[in-house]
């Protein structure tokens, strides 16, 4: 009886130790599911670690939640894709610096038979208008993410109020939204990275790409030392600087899926 108790105690202590053991040199990075799902971090983080010895722990959430994490002081650094929101974040004093890091682009995906015939559209606005005209099923993230916000801007450009039976707001991440679109043969707007890495395409195919309004800019933010003095600002600055350095930019350019480059470095 006593022996068992001792054993259990020893086990609990060991587990407690194992769970609390953590490297000191790490930062927590709040970023978006689209970057995480593409596999970009698996490719560039080891290079950053090699250069600086710093671990980056990625918490991948929607852009809205990523901002919220940073606002509450739960993340050391922020890498998101909502330029307008990022600028507001700096204006409100939560971040001290914002830098362009890279861009990828959005693509419009849909069933191979393309009932709204957007293949031949001249612009994104035309493609979106055609989908609304045909009332072809369209699945939207509906989660206030960067992608979702970009999509809503595109409907506005096309002069369409997206509502009705054909427009489905899912409240899901990019991957689950693609899964749903595949299941119901719907149109969907996705970032290219998630689409290229996506494994459950079924009948879906890439139908429209290349319009400049579809470019998706990523920015890195340095968070305010005043608001959250406890954060690892030194390490976060190293990460921020590395991302926009020559090495970091090269690492981003080197990341390819099936021989296709997904992110295009554009730090100034």
């Amino acid at each position, binding site marked *: 009886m006593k022996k068992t108790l001792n054993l259990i105690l020893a086990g609990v202590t060991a587990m407690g130790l194992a*769970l609390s053991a*953590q490297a000191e040199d790490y930062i927590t990075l709040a970023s978006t599911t689209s970057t995480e*799902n593409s596999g970009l971090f698996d490719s560039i983080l080891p290079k950053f670690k090699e250069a600086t010895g710093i671990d980056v722990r990625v918490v991948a959430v929607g852009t809205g939640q990523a901002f919220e994490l940073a606002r509450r002081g739960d993340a050391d650094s922020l890498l998101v894709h909502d330029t307008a929101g990022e600028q507001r974040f700096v204006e409100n004093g939560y971040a001290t610096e914002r830098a362009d890091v890279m861009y990828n682009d959005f693509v419009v995906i849909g069933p191979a038979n393309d009932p709204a015939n957007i293949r031949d559209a001249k612009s994104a606005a035309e493609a979106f208008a055609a989908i609304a005209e045909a009332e072809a099923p369209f699945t939207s993230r509906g989660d206030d993410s960067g992608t979702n916000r970009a999509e809503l801007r595109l409907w506005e450009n096309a002069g369409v109020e997206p509502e009705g039976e054909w427009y489905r707001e899912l409240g899901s*991440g990019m991957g689950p939204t693609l899964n749903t679109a595949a299941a119901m043969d719907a149109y969907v707007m996705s970032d290219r990275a*998630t689409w290229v890495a996506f494994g459950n395409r079924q009948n879906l195919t890439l139908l429209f790409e290349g319009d400049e309004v579809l470019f998706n800019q990523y920015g890195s933010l340095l968070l305010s030392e005043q608001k959250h003095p*406890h954060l690892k600002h030194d390490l976060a600055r190293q990460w921020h600087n590395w991302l926009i350095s020559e090495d970091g930019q090269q690492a981003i350019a080197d990341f390819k899926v099936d021989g296709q480059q997904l992110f295009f470095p554009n730090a100034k």
Partner: protein
Amino acid sequence: MENNAFYVALSLLLNFDAALYQIVALSLQVSLLAVLIAAVLGFPLGAAVALWRFPGRGGVIVVLNALMGLPPVVAGLMVYLLLSRAGPLGELGFLFTPGAMVIAQVVLVLPILAALSRQKVEEMLGEYREQFVSLGMSRARMMPTLLWDARFALLTVLLAGFGRASAEVGAVMMVGGNIDGVTRVMTTAIVLETGKGNLPLALGLGIVLLTLVMLINAGAYLVGELTRRRTG
């Protein structure tokens, strides 16, 4: 695709790679530790509610029973707000660590262990009460006796708690962050792979999780049966 998933699950198990091993080990550590802590708190709590009559007792029982159905994501949100830097326990720096996941799962499992052990202990108390009073036992003294004598029933309760802990995803996702190599567990890995559209891999991981849970249940069942046969 199902065939595919079973194939993936099998090769995952056979080629036991380091990443999978780490995920499985962390899942077990977090859930087992959470269930253990919840048991240390929940069993005496359940027994106390069974033993003592106090004003509001009915309300406590209703609340415990209702909390058994607490959505994991709500538990996660509560623990997140507690551990967030802006929250009351933010100073601890517990957020996005396995420790935070343990806390969230304790919140989920504790009501199950307390509510079910209350029921089991009360049943047993009905059988033992006269003998206990005859022996001159106080209520406080009855508690350890009842908990020990209900050990087989409580083992099943413990398994129910473990099932809940190891199956939930909402709470650990929110307070753990699904950080690769740090807080990624089986369920959050499954969500991630589903998001990537890697359905066979996701299902394969699910099969691995199911296999693990079944093994643990089978082990507990065997231990229970063997000791039951020995001690009647």
